[in-house]
């Protein structure tokens, strides 16, 4: 691994080490959000949320674009995801469901 990718990994781990930033990432992965709409979800200032968004942007996890006076953020995890790992996540969901069916059947 060269120095650049090490730096990139550091930036991503740093970005994701914060609960608010993980929450922001989850929201913008589900669809584009304006920074002011995001800020409404947290008990902190608009500027603080803007800083969190900037950290995520520097780590390459989200992209931002301007529309008029609004800044719109959307998640970009193409770099850290592959379809194979997504199917593994889906597998985990199904394992949970099947465990719960098993538990329900055992109650009888």
């Amino acid at each position, binding site marked *: 691994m060269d120095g650049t990718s090490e730096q990139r990994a550091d930036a991503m781990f740093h970005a994701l080490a914060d609960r608010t930033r993980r929450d922001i990432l989850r929201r913008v992965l589900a669809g584009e959000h304006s920074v002011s709409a995001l800020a409404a979800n947290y008990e902190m200032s608009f500027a603080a949320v803007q800083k969190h968004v900037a950290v995520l942007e520097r780590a390459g996890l989200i992209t931002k674009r301007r529309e008029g006076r609004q800044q719109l953020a959307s998640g970009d995890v193409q770099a850290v*995801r592959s379809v194979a790992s997504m*199917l593994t996540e889906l597998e985990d969901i199904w394992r949970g469901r*099947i465990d719960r069916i098993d538990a329900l059947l055992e109650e009888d």
Partner: protein
Amino acid sequence: MPVIDITKDIDTRTIIITAQFAAPVERVWAVYADPRQLEKVWGPPQYPATFVEHQLAPGGRMTYYMTSPEGERFGGWWEITEVDEPRSFSFRDGFADADLQPLLDMPVSENTFTFETADGGTRAVFTSVYATAEGLEQVLAMGVEEGATSAINQIDDYLAA
């Protein structure tokens, strides 16, 4: 461990889970036919599901919402396409908003569940197909099931690649 086989096809975004349950086919079918039982197995424990509409019949609709630990509601809908009680049913599965109105720009998966008698119990096969990788990603990114920690797990894979 009741999961006995998992097949994933990356090209077609298909996941097929085979499970073995220690109960007759009719009993397993009853889990899906009864909304009060279905809501115990569909949402994860921290996101309990509530089925509002439940019609397990061809052309029938199901609507439900899952409630997050913070009280946020994540809606969903099923559109039942085929039913062969108690052996199989197929449905389209999509997202809805908190008022249970379908979100038309969200991805829809095609699902078929089959149940057959095997080894003194029921062999169940759950097949889910997503049309596009982007759709699959969007579904997982909604985070209604597993939350954002999976995003961190992906980084390990990325770094190992």
